[in-house]
């Protein structure tokens, strides 16, 4: 399948993302006769062939959605072989590297291929990504994954040590942009310079620790890079939840509270409370002589207690635990090397 060639219907051998919730999604490769077990029950591959991407699949105990993969979904669904980069950092990296169709990018390390998909999208269909990974098994798995996603035309995976050897000689002075996410980026700056075009190019480094950044910036200045800038970005992702606030009981009725100016506005439940009062329901509060009133109106009016009313508020809530730090992004530009021009 082509990762960047959108298709409406699911076919055999396609990579399909099974969506259960925002935190629970995973990829499957569709094969006739296979069955995938989920917490909602089995997904029969035969049944999803011919279905439309984006459609609902009913399992025994719930339903899932069948989605077409894209780099953002892939980042959330991919099998983790390493720590990975997430969309907030990725989108900034791709933007600052100035990627566009036809450009050549170098990356190291490949890791789980989270960023690689987004980089490839930036240069697709005419460009190329040269990605170096020093862990042999990971480089093989990544190569296989890119092939399954129909991207082998645009990505070459090399198994080598970027600090020691850099990118292969045939890539020398071909790259428009280089990205590093390795433990010792400062050891590879010389190779970065060799890979970048003679007319200059963009560089980005991702490091979790400030010491790595410190040393990298020193090295970048030494090698003639300019516009060195380090940023840190933390994404706060929220979803909208409905919260309920119970009303405190002050022993008086809604109208008295409103007159005293102590009622919140724009709340759903209090609205229904008022409506029912208007329809003839009888408020139940402590300061009234409940017993007597009850005897009088017991038949006609239903009783309403303000303290039983919840105030309903829609609010945007962040996750209970979210990323407080991912890494520092250092951007730099290499000016053209030919001084005579």
């Amino acid at each position, binding site marked *: 399948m082509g990762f960047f060639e959108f298709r409406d219907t699911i076919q055999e051998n396609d990579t399909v993302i099974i969506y259960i919730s925002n935190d629970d999604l995973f990829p499957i490769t569709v094969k006739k006769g296979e069955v995938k077990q989920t917490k909602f029950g089995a997904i029969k591959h035969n049944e999803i062939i011919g279905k439309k991407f984006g459609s609902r699949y009913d399992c025994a105990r719930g339903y899932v959605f069948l989605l077409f993969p894209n780099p953002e979904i892939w980042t959330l669904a991919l099998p983790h072989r390493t720590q990975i980069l997430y969309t907030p950092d990725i989108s900034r990296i791709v933007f600052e590297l100035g990627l566009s169709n036809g450009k050549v990018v170098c990356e190291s390390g490949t890791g789980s291929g989270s960023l690689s998909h987004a980089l490839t999208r930036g240069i697709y269909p005419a460009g190329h990504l040269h990605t170096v990974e020093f862990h042999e098994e990971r480089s093989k798995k990544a190569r296989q994954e890119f092939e399954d996603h129909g991207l082998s035309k645009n990505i070459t995976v090399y198994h080598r040590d970027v600090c020691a050897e850099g990118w292969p000689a045939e890539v020398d002075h071909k790259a428009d942009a280089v990205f590093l996410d390795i433990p010792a980026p400062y050891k590879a700056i010389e190779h970065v310079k060799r890979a970048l075009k003679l007319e200059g190019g963009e560089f980005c480094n991702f490091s979790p620790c400030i010491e790595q950044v410190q040393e990298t910036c020193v090295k970048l200045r030494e090698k003639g890079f300019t516009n060195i800038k380090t940023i840190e970005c933390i994404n706060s992702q929220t979803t909208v939840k409905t919260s309920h606030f119970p009303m405190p009981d002050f022993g008086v009725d809604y109208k008295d509270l409103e007159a005293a100016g102590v009622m919140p506005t724009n709340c759903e439940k209090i609205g229904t409370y008022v409506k029912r009062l208007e329809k003839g329901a009888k408020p139940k509060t402590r300061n009234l002589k409940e017993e007597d009133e009850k005897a009088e109106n017991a038949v006609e009016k239903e009783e309403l207690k303000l303290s039983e009313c919840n105030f309903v508020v829609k609010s*945007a809530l962040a996750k209970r635990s979210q990323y407080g730090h991912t890494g520092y992004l250092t951007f730099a530009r290499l000016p053209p090397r030919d001084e005579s021009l």
Partner: protein
Amino acid sequence: MNLIKDGDRAIIGHDGIYKIMVVKKGKHASFAKHKFAWDACIGRSWGHTWQIQQGKLEKLDSNEACGESVVSKVLDNIQSGADNRNAADLSEKGQNLERECIMEMREEKKGEELIEKIARGNADFESKTRFTQEKFVRHKQKKHGGRIEILKPSMNLIVHQKLAVERTKGAYFDVHEFATMIAMANIHANSKVLLADHSSCFLSGAILSKLKGGSGELVSVFQGQLGDSPPHVPLQNYEFPDEVWDQLLYYPAKSLGKATISGDFELPELKDEDEDLPPQAKKQKTDTEDNKREEDKSRISRRERQEKRLKKYSRAVELMKEKLECLIIAPKHHPLPWLFMLLPFLKPSCPFVVYCDKKEPLMEIFNKLHERKSAVMLSINSVFERTVQVLPMRTHPEVHMPGNRGYVLYGISVL
């Protein structure tokens, strides 16, 4: 190799402050009150750093181009104190040189010399610590140094420059939100994109530069009526070739309401220009032969223009009927009506992003989509971003960071 030519558009500036200008032989331009002639840079390669020196551009070697080289040069002959025990208070007048005097010196002296003069003019400069001195020199270098880079415009540079200008006028999106939208919408050169953009072409420019060289198409639903075309003046900075302009299609919002209700998309009619011309012009038309020839010329170009527009309209309608692969919305209105108007034109399992500088409209959209079960992967994203100063022994986040940033709602349409 790509060299600077007369008439090219260039991005000039330094340290994140940039301007877009046209390179003109024999002409002068100015940057941060430094006037200079273009001539020296024509025929040289893009990306070098230049020193403005008495109205002329002088190319700096790559080892000089780094700002830190000035710091060490200026401070080479200046002593420094062990600590700040004798330093003057911030509120006291520190500079012995008058402003006029500095402005005059800017005309004559070379960058480093000027900075050294200013440094020596600073009260008790020599008693300050090296760190304080370095900070001072860096600051003055930015202000008076007269260094510029001349860069070839690219999408990210143009967006950086334009957003910096727009933000001073009243906030629109920040670079990070912009980058997030472009990425999350899954745009590549072959994408079919549906867009509602009221941000003076930031998004349409960026999207078109992503579509360049591919088979992608951009349908822009613009504020206007049948027969109009969206504004495109800010797109000139991109200097797109004709093929890219052909990838830009559009359809007016005013005809969209009817189209979604009845399913019929209106298209503008081709008019013979006689009908629109005021009667006076009609009279004049018959006056002379010369005039007639000119009229014919304008009639053809007008007819052509109309036909071209009709072609763009009808291709846009075709694509909207087929449905598109990503949807981006950044309106100046409440985004909810825009989203629910355009969502039916998005294929299932395709991403959409909505930008708003307030959170509440996006929360309403979130709830509505959630209730209708018409999208998954819903989230509202905002970012905390800060720049970090990285210097030996002096690394810390910068004192100021942008506040009041916008929000991006992301989702994937489902059946």
